[in-house]
């Protein structure tokens, strides 16, 4: 791996939250004796990201993804551990650092609600000290890629969620950040717009070599953009590597799709593996990974097979499987 642009070591964030029962009595009680509970949002997370890489950061709600991104963007102080991004310690919040990064949060906006996006863009030009020529070039490119022309002069409050997200992305990219943190950039937008945003992120990365760390609930975002994923669950890193390798490691089975030349009625397909689907002559079986080749050999010799394919389970299922497990367990129990 080339020299890391993002380097995180043993990053840990523990929140201390007050806790009390519902009701008036509990409320009065909490005035005198506060009870605290520790929430370990991020636990000993370490990974590196090379310049120009797009890395998907996956995990269910509350896994610690956003907390990690916020620490990297300088919004949160970690409880322990270290991180450097572009050679800076993010939470020192130096201007020189903030000028070179961006964090886009799907549920927060930096654009001013009452005025057109263009006005906010001009403010960003001044704040980030972007020279006029560079600003025009970048803006033209963003307008072109994101099709912003019709939106630039409408007040933000009149834009749809998807339109607003496109403008948020543009606002975050005007200063050509070298590192881009995207937290659920496609949250709540329709499928077409999701695709558009994805294409845009890929194109931006290709053109400017920006490093991207992306979280999303939509696997399609991740499969489209990221070769590498870091899977985090209960604050810990479960997997760091190729997306494809995740299935090998985490899913202990493969799917065998069969096309038989006559109806499978009466056939005891359960002998070969767990039957997931059965529709006329078409069958989908779930087979333990280690037994796949033996099973395929038996299927081919014992059944009138027209077509047979062996696949990894869809990545959504793999991820789902991973996330259903408790901390410390592996997914192999399923």
């Amino acid at each position, binding site marked *: 791996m080339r020299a890391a642009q993002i380097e995180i070591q043993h990053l840990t964030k523990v929140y201390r939250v007050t806790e009390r029962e519902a009701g008036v009595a509990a409320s009065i009680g909490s005035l005198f004796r506060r009870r605290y509970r520790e929430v370990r949002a991020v636990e000993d997370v370490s990974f590196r990201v090379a310049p120009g890489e797009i890395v998907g950061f996956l995990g269910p709600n509350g896994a610690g993804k956003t*907390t990690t991104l916020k620490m990297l963007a300088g919004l949160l102080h970690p409880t322990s551990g270290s991180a450097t991004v572009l050679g800076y310690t993010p939470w020192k919040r130096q201007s020189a650092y*903030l000028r070179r990064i961006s964090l886009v949060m799907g549920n927060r906006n930096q654009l001013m609600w009452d005025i057109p996006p263009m006005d906010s863009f001009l*403010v960003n030009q001044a704040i980030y000290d972007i020279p006029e020529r560079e600003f025009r070039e970048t803006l033209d490119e963003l307008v072109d890629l994101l099709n912003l022309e019709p939106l630039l002069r409408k007040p933000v409050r009149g834009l749809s969620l998807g339109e607003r997200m496109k403008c948020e992305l543009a606002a975050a990219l005007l200063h050509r950040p070298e590192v881009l943190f995207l937290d659920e950039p496609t949250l709540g937008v329709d499928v077409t717009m999701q695709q558009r945003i994805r294409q845009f992120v890929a194109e931006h990365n290709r053109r400017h070599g920006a490093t991207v760390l992306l979280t999303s609930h939509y696997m399609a975002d991740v499969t489209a953009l990221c070769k590498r994923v870091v899977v985090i669950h209960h604050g810990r890193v479960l997997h760091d590597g190729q997306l494809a390798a995740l299935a090998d490691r985490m899913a202990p089975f493969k799917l065998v799709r069969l096309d038989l030349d006559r109806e499978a009625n009466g056939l005891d397909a359960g002998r070969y593996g767990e039957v997931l689907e059965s529709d006329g002559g078409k069958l989908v079986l779930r087979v333990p990974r280690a037994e796949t080749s033996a099973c395929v050999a038996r299927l081919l010799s014992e059944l009138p097979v027209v077509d047979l394919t062996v696949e990894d389970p869809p990545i959504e299922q793999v991820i789902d499987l991973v996330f259903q497990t408790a901390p410390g367990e592996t997914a192999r129990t399923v």
Partner: protein
Amino acid sequence: MAYWLRVYRALLKMAWSMMVQYRFTVLIWAVWGFVGPLISLAVWSATTAARGGAVSNGGVSFSRSDFAAYFLVFMIFGHLTMSWDAFEFAWRVRDGNLSPRLLRPLNPIHGDAAANVGFKTFTSLLLLPIWIALFVILRPTPPADAIQLLLAVPAVLLAAVLRYVLQYSLALIAFWTTRVDAINQLYFTLDSFLAGRIAPLALLPGWLGTMAVASPFRAMGSFPVELALGRVPPADVASGFVLQLVWLAVALALFRVLWAAGVRQYSAVGA
């Protein structure tokens, strides 16, 4: 320097375009500034009439037209020095909207200060005819000293900056409590009396007057008003400015300390 000019120009332009969007709301807010001074003026006019034409304390005396001058200038200066950020700031901390602002390489106070200046310049233009009309109707005493009148310009600018920074620092308490209303209430109560909004400080009883003169409230309240009217004893002009500068230094130090600690606190509990 050129950077800051560009930043403030852009921020001001944005503030103005927001004002234009909400011109009526903005105007209603601005007109609120009339209420306090006009009520005070009405009360003191009645008192003056009952006392046979003037109210005195020590060697200082105010006639009806003196009160008119005092409260009219206070109305204008009060408008030019007003600040309301505490409410907005607390709300931003509570709902997390501070976060996008913290991502920028610029302290959020600059954006808010520009919005404040934008509001004042925009509304002053709208209010100017009303102010002129009030001067014509209420026939105030004209300024007594041309030099003090000129000095009132830097004094009112210092007062505006001081009030802004001090109020913003109070707003930062929202990082710890997210409920700054009570503290604000205390601030406004003290401000009503000690800044000279209800009565000119020269009319306050001895000990209260002395306390008020040394307080930051006079520095950001009646000091520029007294200068504009030529009512500051010549020996006290310099010390008035020194007090403004000292309080400004204190407010800036307070802001820096609270900001650094506050952001750390905000980022510890979950931005």
